[in-house]
């Protein structure tokens, strides 16, 4: 996780985002001291539901910048991903993909290609950037945890975007080929050597396949009205002057 946090911290610095408005929502327990160091509000909540929780935060206070770190994105969080993409709910989702459930030896995640994990799996995997792109995300990217600079840039770019952005970060998991003690450098090295960067690649082509190079890069970058934009536009069309813009001086109390 640590290289991702570093990239995240640098990404915030590089972007134009006010730190005081930033909230992190995650289903992964972070080291609290790291969060303190980052200087953001932090919610560690139920598995896979960070997007839904973040939706409430965003609508409660539209000035907030929501970043959701999610492990169980394509399983428990799948439907929230799909619908938030459709709505273009303004937030950045960082999917930390280590292919396995860390605590449970070898249980494959739905992003695993056949043959990747210790127990292996025969199911077809999700292609996370393609899934997000198809649902309507305005920004998608994939990097490994070792692509520190690229990841930093992508995080900064995504933070500056209005809309639903998804960055997939491939990060080492303990049961992925290696013994847990050997994991760090060797595995990262593996990722790095076996990946190739193709920016603006069609997300249909970026599926992770064993024996082939992992395609990294920024794939989607488009503009679309956000949920709050459309909400306000729709209601002011119907109500005219009576309408109080969403998240404005709400309710007067």
């Amino acid at each position: 996780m640590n290289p991702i946090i570093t990239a995240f911290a640098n990404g915030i610095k590089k972007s134009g985002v006010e730190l005081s408005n930033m909230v992190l929502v995650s289903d992964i327990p972070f080291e609290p001291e790291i969060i303190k160091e980052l200087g953001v509000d932090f919610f560690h909540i139920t598995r896979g539901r960070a997007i839904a929780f973040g939706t409430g935060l965003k609508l409660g206070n539209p000035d907030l910048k929501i970043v959701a770190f999610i492990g169980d994105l394509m399983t428990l969080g799948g439907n929230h991903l799909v619908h938030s993409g459709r709505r273009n709910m303004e937030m950045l989702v960082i999917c930390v993909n280590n292919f396995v459930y860390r605590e449970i030896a070898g249980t494959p995640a739905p992003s695993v290609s056949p043959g990747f994990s210790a127990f292996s799996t025969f199911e077809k995997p999700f292609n996370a950037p393609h899934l997000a792109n198809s649902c309507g995300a305005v920004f998608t990217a994939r990097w490994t945890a070792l692509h520190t600079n690229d990841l930093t840039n992508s995080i900064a770019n995504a933070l500056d975007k209005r809309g639903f952005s998804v960055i997939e970060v491939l990060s080492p998991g303990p049961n992925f080929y290696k013994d847990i003690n050997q994991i760090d450098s060797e595995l990262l090295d593996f990722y790095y050597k076996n990946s190739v960067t193709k920016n603006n690649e069609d997300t249909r082509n970026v599926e992770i396949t064993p024996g082939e190079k992992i395609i990294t890069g920024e794939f989607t970058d488009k503009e679309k009205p956000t949920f709050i934009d459309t909400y306000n536009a729709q209601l002011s069309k119907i109500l005219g002057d009576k309408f109080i813009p969403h998240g404005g001086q709400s309710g007067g109390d």
Partner: protein
Amino acid sequence: MKTNLKAVLTGTHTLSGNEAFIEGAFAAGCRFLAAYPIMPAIETIERYLKRSAEVGATFIQMEDEISALAAVIGASWTGKKSMTVTSGPGFSNMMEHLGLGVMLETPCVIVDVQQSGPSLGIPTRAGQGDMMQARWGSHGDYEVITLSPSSPQEMFDFTIKAFNFSEKYRTPVIIMSDEYVAHKKEKVIIPRADEIKITPRRYFKGQKDKYLPFKRDKDFVPRMVDIGDGYKFHVTGLTHDDKGYPIMLEECQEYNVHPILWKIRNDTEKIIEFQEIGTKDAEIVIVYYGATSGAASKAIKQARDLGIKVGSLKLDTVWPFPDKKITELAEKVKAFVVPEINYGQIVSEVERCSYGNANVVFVSHGENGIDNTEDIVSAIKLALNEEKIKKGIIEYQSQTGRV
């Protein structure tokens, strides 16, 4: 707190329970609803949408009830009073996040418009089958406050109470409505805004770097701040300390969870509300709540006309359960009669608190709907004629409607 006058529809109206709920919520200061549509709760959303623009309230239709409650808990941390509405199947979906709301000590209100169950049941018929689920449905130990309205007027009044309790104790509060109360249209009197008592959120007002999200006041209730106000705090659903940092130790489990339970247990006498009528000289006391109120009050009148000394205890808050009151009454009366639209839930609580001092007769309205006054009267007669104290619950065998 400044009150938005448009939010309080002062005057006399004819409203259904579902509509009265929304008016109660707006009057209480609620400005956020996240929900997934379900019968028979759906009219609440329609009413909310109709009124939300002039009130300045936000609505989002989420993808399911799991995300609806997650969004509600999130929105509550931004300082908005928040709620969700659902019915049985959706309520089951919400159970994980009910626990999250308890653990993060987040004020919010959930309305469960009960229908028949299990599973899909009959979405258009009243039920009271979720009473135990509200109390025990989420994993781990928790206390919950539930209110059980029996009319649109109570729906309005109890909704305000529910928001007040949720702010006072920093906990989710559940309103156990049902299809009957939800759809029944009656006169509802909405008072002036300045006549409505609102419990404000208990905010931390110290230095920004000194805020601890779970540091408790003497009554075990911690103080809140609004997210985005620069307090930079850490919150987790894992067992945590005052700082909100996860600590995986047994001592911390005790340190964390004990006060979450006892902030409510210590105050049960202040929370519990019931309406007690004619129990002084009563031989039989009918204990009821929610939709069975109509049939129960009719039965009480009929039994009194027959010369039977019947008293009644209508539970406004079902959880926490009025243990003391039932125990006290059990020593004086011969029997309790408990009608419910289920196959026995709150009746077992009445029996538990009776300690064998009074008979407990259960009238199941499982299939008979909410109007079966006759059964209750017959059950009263049965209770009266039952001489010896029997252990366990005596189930009244209905003469009508059984398959």
